């Protein structure tokens, strides 16, 4: 294989993992924008989505039903999580919220470990389309489907937030929750909706991720979750195009580092990039610089 087509292969790998990061990062960024909270448990919702769909598939349900059930249950789960754990802490300090989020993340991982054991479970890939051949490069169905679904969802989400009343309410609440309440927006419902959408996107990411990287285990969500958070931070947390850009950017860095530098030191390099980015440009690529007010 020539150097160029290998580069193209890596580029496609980067797009694939990048689109999954982007989907997860969207959830992070939406929740952060509206609730000012890093939802550490967001990564674990990917895992919940993957397991729920796996149970449905193993029960013999067709794949589309499995996907729908998984997405709906993750949304419901996201809303319940917000109501029980985050809502009572809305006026508490940041550090309390973060610790609660870490607690929920660990609760999910360990509860699933007790129920399903820590052993990896094979995930039957149900995307059965023919691979795409362009010259010397073959793109498997998993890859282009992941990419297409991610891009479509991102476009739909952007249109939703820009044009619908609910989307406007979301933007208003993230701008200034107090003022939004005075304008007659139901802040609680808007926050719930945000969690529902974010968790649904995480479920989609979980299903796509499991299709590409088959055996799944209860801690599968934590590393992609952290990396997607990095992606959201790279793009500028709170910004939706930023999350997408950051996701693809991070996926590309990962693929290139894996191919051309070292796959063993991958995580070190990715995390170092993150730290440098945050130190040099804390607001991210597309983030706004916010002045501190007293």
């Amino acid at each position, binding site marked *: 294989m020539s150097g160029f087509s290998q580069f193209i292969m890596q580029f496609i790998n980067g797009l694939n993992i990048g689109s999954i990061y982007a989907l997860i990062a969207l959830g992070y960024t939406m929740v952060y924008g509206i609730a000012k909270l890093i939802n550490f448990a967001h990564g674990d919702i990917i895992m919940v989505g993957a397991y729920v769909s796996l149970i449905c598939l193993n029960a013999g349900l067709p794949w589309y039903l499995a996907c729908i059930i998984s997405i709906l249950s993750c949304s419901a789960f996201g809303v319940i999580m917000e109501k029980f754990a985050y809502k009572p802490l809305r006026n508490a300090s*940041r550090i309390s919220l973060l610790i609660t989020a870490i607690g929920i993340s660990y609760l999910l991982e360990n509860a699933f470990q007790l129920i399903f054991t820590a052993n990896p479970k094979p995930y039957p890939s149900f995307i059965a389309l023919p691979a795409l051949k362009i010259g010397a490069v073959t793109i498997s169905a998993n890859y282009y489907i992941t990419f297409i679904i991610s891009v479509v969802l991102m476009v739909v989400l952007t249109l939703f937030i820009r044009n619908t009343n609910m989307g406007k309410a979301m933007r208003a609440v993230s701008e200034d929750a107090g003022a939004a309440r005075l304008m007659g927006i139901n802040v609680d419902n808007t926050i719930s909706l945000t969690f529902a959408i974010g968790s649904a996107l995480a479920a989609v990411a979980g299903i796509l991720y499991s299709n590409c990287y088959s055996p799944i285990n209860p801690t599968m969500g934590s590393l992609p979750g952290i990396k997607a*958070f990095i992606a959201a931070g790279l793009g500028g947390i709170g910004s939706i195009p930023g999350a997408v850009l950051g996701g693809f950017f991070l996926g590309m860095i990962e693929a290139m580092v894996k191919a051309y530098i070292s796959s063993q030191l991958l995580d070190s390099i990715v995390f170092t990039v993150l730290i440098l980015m945050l130190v040099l440009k*804390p607001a991210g690529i597309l983030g706004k610089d916010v002045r501190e007010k007293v």
Partner: protein
Amino acid sequence: MDQSFKKQLLIDFGTVLGSYAVLFALQKSGVINTYWQGIILVVCINVILTVSLNVTSGFLGELALGHAGFMAIGAYLSAFISKSLPLIPALEFPVAILIGGLSAMAAGYIVAIPTLRLRGDYLAIITLAFGEIIRNILKNLMLFGGTKGYPNIPAYTTFTWAFFGAAVCVLAAKSLIASRHGRSIISVREDEIAAEASGVNTNRYKILAFVFSAFFAGVAGALYAHYIRFLQPSVFTLDKSIEILVMVVLGGMGSIRGSIISATVLTVLPELLRSFSDYRMLMYSIVLIVMMLAKHSASGKIMFRPAADKTQEAET
């Protein structure tokens, strides 16, 4: 240094020496068997880890998730020193502990620099990333055996070393917090902008808290390395950092006494409840959530005197 503080210091020294004498006598006379002696050692190490993390997370008010990383640096470097330096053991171990602590401190300084520009959530992520970087590097560092582990570390850690390590850490933390530097650290937690406006050099105190906490994490790592005698990168995961955080949260953020007690309880309890060991991490996560929900911030009120807690954490 006023009179009451001096008195308090005397009481503290008395408590330390008294409890050391009692524990030492019990161990020598065989009332405490070797199994429990090992557990007491681990309690001492965990007390160091918890109290030192409390300085950043409780008093400075920044969530640090890389404590296991500092511990790993201290453990590996001190083990390297005591394995390669041809000194007599009595001299070698203090040097190893000191090097372990100082190298972790240097790493703490490096991590503290980004914290000067970032707060809260980003800082938590940076420290988490730092911990993962350390573990990833150790996994690939053949000098330290990589994933296979670093064996044959001399068994220098005795009860006396661990106990006085913990005592020094606790007394140092107490003195730091009681001093004007400590008050400055707390002022950063309460309201950074107000602190800065009142002339507190917030950058300096953030670095001070981080470096202090990293140093003792390194010391704990050194003690751990020379007790376990075999190091593996898989020990120093995020789980370990979270475990220490659970101890801090349960004891009360901003309460040193609470940290000592919760580190002891959370080390001894799993030993007593061996059959529930599968549920340990599950219990920890529930502890975190319940503690935060039970009282919005420092949970110290439930258990003990709310140490530096009178004003509560500042609202964000």
